[in-house]
């Protein structure tokens, strides 16, 4: 008897599909997306740091470029990713040790609110100098 | 000589238990079921493991069968039963007057019955109507019909039985006056084929008449529907019965986190499609309320209706028809190699299987004895593995 099985690729993409799913699923998807983004950033960052080995001039010219508003807004996006991933990570750690499991949705809400506030403060600081 | 091939039509409790019985006797069996296991009458069961108390006054033959099988099932499927006993409670003077007859009936049928203090009953059943006047505790229990059948079939399969689901019987192949095979259609592949059979056991419940008609014989069966209503909270630990003759809505069976109130009774034409009359549902709630006053406040979780395969006895109404079973050897109507097992209830499925298997063996000239009383069943989960 030949049973119908959906292709692996299609199934593997399910973590991405939040349609008709609930808050926990969104948290999972967002965590993954920010996680992937942060890994990419990590290696970019490490690559940029190699400029340090080329001496003061190279680095300082990079720093002056990176102080432009365009780079600063990229910083804000980075910070958003870090805050979301980090605070959601706290939810995963806490619930993973059986703390606040029943309140996980509220926990997520509170943590994301915290992330938003921190981001707003940080953005003011970044652009306000 | 080739090993005899037996085909069983229907994988409800009777078919499943018969497959197990025959397989245990070393006979090759194939079960043909048109849907999922227990998708007919057995599935939509009240889940009551009868102690016989319900019939000990009106139908002692059934009551004795029930208590015997109740004790046997405790041995062969101990893990599949919720054994909390049952209470028969009196709510008015008429009920109270029935108590003596009930206790006598239980004694006559060897059903252990204890007349317990009302205070005691209310302590065990905090949601029971506080106006209760008397309570008798008897060894009722709860099973789960789907897994009940799966366990029988899983064990049968370990002993070589074949179970074909989503396969329906379209016709019989006859040679002269004997049934020699079954024409089937697989509803998954769409293919039709004919299976050889030395004997066919018709265990199709309320559809037994329809199957028998394909072989040109009749079964005196009355498909009788009943409505059951499930509420969204478990209100009783034990099975609660009204202490009186069986009537509509006089029993509440707990099932997992719910309570199931049942039942009504009316004759139906087409057991495939039964419309649930809203007034029957309302009657279940009104009657259930008498036993458990909280019932009406709880949201309804499900309601179901299914036809029971009661055997007709001339002139009797549905409640009076005996709940016992009967085995019909259609050789008496001129068709060989074809027997029907009908009536009965899930609690007595093993006994029905024993009876029909004895007849099968006798017809085939085999001497293997029934062993289902003592052989414990394997895990129902193995059916799907």
């Amino acid at each position: 008897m030949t049973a119908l099985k959906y292709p692996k690729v299609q199934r593997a993409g399910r973590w991405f599909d939040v349609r008709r799913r609930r808050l926990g699923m969104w948290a999972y998807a967002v965590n993954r997306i920010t996680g992937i983004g942060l890994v990419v950033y990590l290696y970019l960052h490490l690559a940029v740091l190699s400029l340090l080995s080329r001496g003061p001039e190279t680095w300082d010219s990079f720093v002056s470029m990176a102080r432009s508003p365009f780079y600063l807004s990229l910083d804000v996006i980075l910070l958003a990713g870090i805050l979301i991933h980090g605070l959601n990570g706290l939810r995963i750690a806490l619930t993973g040790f059986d703390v606040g499991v029943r309140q996980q949705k509220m926990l997520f809400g509170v943590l994301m609110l915290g992330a938003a506030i921190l981001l707003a403060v940080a953005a003011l600081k970044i652009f306000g100098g | 000589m080739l090993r005899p091939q037996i085909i069983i039509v229907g994988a409800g409790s009777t078919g499943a238990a018969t497959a197990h019985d025959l397989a245990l006797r070393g006979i090759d069996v194939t079960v043909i079921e048109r849907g999922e296991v227990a998708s007919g009458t057995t599935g939509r069961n009240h889940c009551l493991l009868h102690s016989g108390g319900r019939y000990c006054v009106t139908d002692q033959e059934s009551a004795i069968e029930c208590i015997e099988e109740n004790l046997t099932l405790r041995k062969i499927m101990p893990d599949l039963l919720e054994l909390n006993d049952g209470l028969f409670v009196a709510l008015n003077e008429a009920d109270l007057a029935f108590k003596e007859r009930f206790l006598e009936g239980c004694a006559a049928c060897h059903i252990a019955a204890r007349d317990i203090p009302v205070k005691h009953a209310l302590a065990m059943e905090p949601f029971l109507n506080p106006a209760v006047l008397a309570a008798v505790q008897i060894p009722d229990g709860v099973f789960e019909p789907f897994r009940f059948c799966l366990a029988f079939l899983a064990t049968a399969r370990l002993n070589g039985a074949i179970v074909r689901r989503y396969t329906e019987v379209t016709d019989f192949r006859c040679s002269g006056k004997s049934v020699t095979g079954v024409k089937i259609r697989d509803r998954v592949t769409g293919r039709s084929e004919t299976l050889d059979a030395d004997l066919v056991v018709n265990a199709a419940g309320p559809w037994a008449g329809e199957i028998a008609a394909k072989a040109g014989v009749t079964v005196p069966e009355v498909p009788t529907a009943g409505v059951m209503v499930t509420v969204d909270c478990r209100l009783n630990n034990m099975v609660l019965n009204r202490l009186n003759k069986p009537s509509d809505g006089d029993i509440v069976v707990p099932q997992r986190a719910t309570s199931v109130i049942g039942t009504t009774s009316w004759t139906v034409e087409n057991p495939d499609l039964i419309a649930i009359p809203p007034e029957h549902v309302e009657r279940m709630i009104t009657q259930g309320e008498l036993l458990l006053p909280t019932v009406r406040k709880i949201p309804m979780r499900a309601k179901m209706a299914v036809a029971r395969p009661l055997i007709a006895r001339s002139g009797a109404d549905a409640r009076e028809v005996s709940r016992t079973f009967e085995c019909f050897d259609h050789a008496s109507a001129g068709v060989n190699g074809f027997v029907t097992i009908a009536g009965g209830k899930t609690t007595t499925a093993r006994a029905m299987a024993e009876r029909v298997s004895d007849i099968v063996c006798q017809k085939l000239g085999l001497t293997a004895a029934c062993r289902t009383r003592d052989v414990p069943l394997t895990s129902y989960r193995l059916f799907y593995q």
Partner: protein
Amino acid sequence: MENPFAEEPKPTAAWLWQVFTGIGLVILLGLHFIANHFIAKGGLRDFADVVAYLRNPVILVLEILFLLCVTSHALLGVRAILVDLGLSEQAEKRVSQALTLLGVLTVGYGLWVTWAVIR
């Protein structure tokens, strides 16, 4: 039929490491971010500043710890995503080996950059 789920699998500490490095990151990344992008004038340090900063032994230890934490956390995360694809046992092993190698290279590179700055 053999039941593949009835056998005890090899225990794993991957998730626990992910959580512990994650908790470490919340602290270390917090410090790293505040020190390098908020306290520093204009959100970034110039070269001389970086050198002075990293020559502080406490900072140096913290930054190296941070490097270890972030690398393992990131690569454990990548590994989780890859394992989630439903790999064969063989492929799972190869993914682990490749990511371990990548981790060692990453940390080595990080240490080299640090050394290049403070020497």
